[in-house]
């Protein structure tokens, strides 16, 4: 694959052998006073100073890349808040605010335009057609592009069909992109996709991502098992690891993730040893976690690829015994018709 060097992320990947991404968006916005049930994207217009503070939190903690506050910024999701007519505007502003923060950093920082799932099931199982999904993602992509995002960052996807629709939208918008899936169900996505499946999918895309990987899911340990799965396919495309800071707990009206900054530091170094190039956090990851991750990545040496046991010893156990890539998983019921 010939890499398109006109893109800021490609250039950064050329000069560095690891990059640190950002942490959570929802968790950090909650800490700033976002109410449960409200659309975070509205804050791009209503509280731009808080969104800039969110971005600056990651940049000041040493992130080389951060995601815009546009995860739910597609027409399907915004419709819930009666804002389906504001897709272009809310995404453009999300990226413009990001551009301001990144350009003031004094070092190259990538503005990655976050694109989350539509929340709908795609045809033939569900009602969302490929064409409509592409159209929704494309509308969002044009807004992010207009606001100055360096790349599109498609995340938390569970269906291959939706991943492909986002790829096509990125192509239509003429943008480079990265794409991660959420492996939250017995080591696979909700739709049953394994890490090896995703690696195969990106190899066949007509507009492949600059980097691919996993975000969110269950805990940091599960996420690294997924990264090992990507690495085992021998894929040459850089791998992204964006895991949650532990699991959510509820305290006095707040959600708190139980992963400590020190645990996330261990996670970051292990992620790199597993083969990830772009390393960040997801839900529960605050600037404090990011600082610990950055320090760990800068000060600790690279190690051998860890075994599953080593990962479990440092980060805790896995949510399932198999992730569907080892052939050790339980088998489907035999049926007479299928033979």
């Amino acid at each position, binding site marked *: 694959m010939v890499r398109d060097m006109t893109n800021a992320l490609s250039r950064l990947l050329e000069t560095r052998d690891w990059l640190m991404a950002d942490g959570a968006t929802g968790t950090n916005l909650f800490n700033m006073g976002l109410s449960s049930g409200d659309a*975070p994207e509205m804050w791009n217009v209503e509280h731009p100073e808080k969104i800039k503070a969110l971005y600056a939190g990651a940049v000041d903690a040493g992130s080389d890349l951060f995601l815009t506050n546009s995860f739910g910024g597609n027409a399907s999701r915004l419709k*819930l808040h009666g804002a389906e007519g504001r897709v272009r505007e809310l995404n453009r502003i999300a990226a413009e605010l990001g551009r301001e923060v990144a350009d003031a950093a004094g070092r190259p920082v990538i503005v990655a335009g976050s694109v989350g799932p539509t*929340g709908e099931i795609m045809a033939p199982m569900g009602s969302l057609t490929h064409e409509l999904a592409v159209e929704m993602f494309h509308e969002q992509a044009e807004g992010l592009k207009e606001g100055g995002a360096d790349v599109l960052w498609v995340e938390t996807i569970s269906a291959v069909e939706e991943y492909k629709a986002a790829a096509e939208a990125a192509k239509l918008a003429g943008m480079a992109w990265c794409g991660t899936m959420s492996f939250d169900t017995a080591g696979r996505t909700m739709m049953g996709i394994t890490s090896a499946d995703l690696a195969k999918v990106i190899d066949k895309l007509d507009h492949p991502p600059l980097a691919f990987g996993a975000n969110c899911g269950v805990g940091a340990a599960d996420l690294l098992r997924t990264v090992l799965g990507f690495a085992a396919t021998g894929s040459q495309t850089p791998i992204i690891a964006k895991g949650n800071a532990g699991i959510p707990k509820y305290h006095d009206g707040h959600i708190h993730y139980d992963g400590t900054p020190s645990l996330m530091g261990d996670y970051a170094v292990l992620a790199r040893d597993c083969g990830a190039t772009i390393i960040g956090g997801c839900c529960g990851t605050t600037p404090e976690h990011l600082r610990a991750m950055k320090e760990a990545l800068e000060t600790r040496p690279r190690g051998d690829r860890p075994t599953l046991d080593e990962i479990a010893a440092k980060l805790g156990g896995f949510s399932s015994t198999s992730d569907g890539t080892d052939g050790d998983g339980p088998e489907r019921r035999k049926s007479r018709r299928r033979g």
Partner: protein
Amino acid sequence: MSDQDDIILSELNDEELVEQMFDDLYDGLKEEIEEGVEILLERGWTPYRVLTEALVGGMTVVGRDFRDGILFVPEVLLAANAMKGGMAILKPLLAETGAPRVGKMVIGTVKGDIHDIGKNLVSMMMEGAGFEVVDLGINNAVEKYLEALETEKPDILGMSALLTTTMPYMKTVIDTMVEQGIRDDYIVLVGGAPLNEEFGRAIGADAYCRDAAVAVDTAKAFVARKHNQMNA
């Protein structure tokens, strides 16, 4: 041609037919399920027996393999769709024959959350287990839940959230129920990807259900307990 044509449902005896219907539910074959239901009814099975032994039995297998990470959402949606075909035939007959009621559930995704995949799976599996389900859809404010509890008088309230930004809203609903003194009139079950057992306990739900299969088992256990208490 595949060996699919080799199986003629009407030539199977009852036991083989039910076993084949388990396979066909598992494989999401709607027409075959509809045919199987019709055959069993023709053979004199009561609608309730067809529901419990063939459909609920088959969906239990699907639910178990979903819980164990063998089947995933697409397969379960197909299976549920096949079951729906059978249910469409049975529903009017069940009403006519006054079949026993397993329980009733009101379910909905909380305010701010558009996600309904998990909730729909729970609805389907609950129906598959014989429950009556009233689905409030997505984005439900507390008033909407309370209104449905008032009019539907269910045994169970189910709430779903897929986002960390919306899951705390479940507590808002439960707190309001407590304020109004109606919390203990219902079994409250919660679910969704970012939740866990501890969260369910912390917000005052009766139980957190990891997936649709667990939801069915939990609902059955709580309803049985409630009935026992009432009879005690």
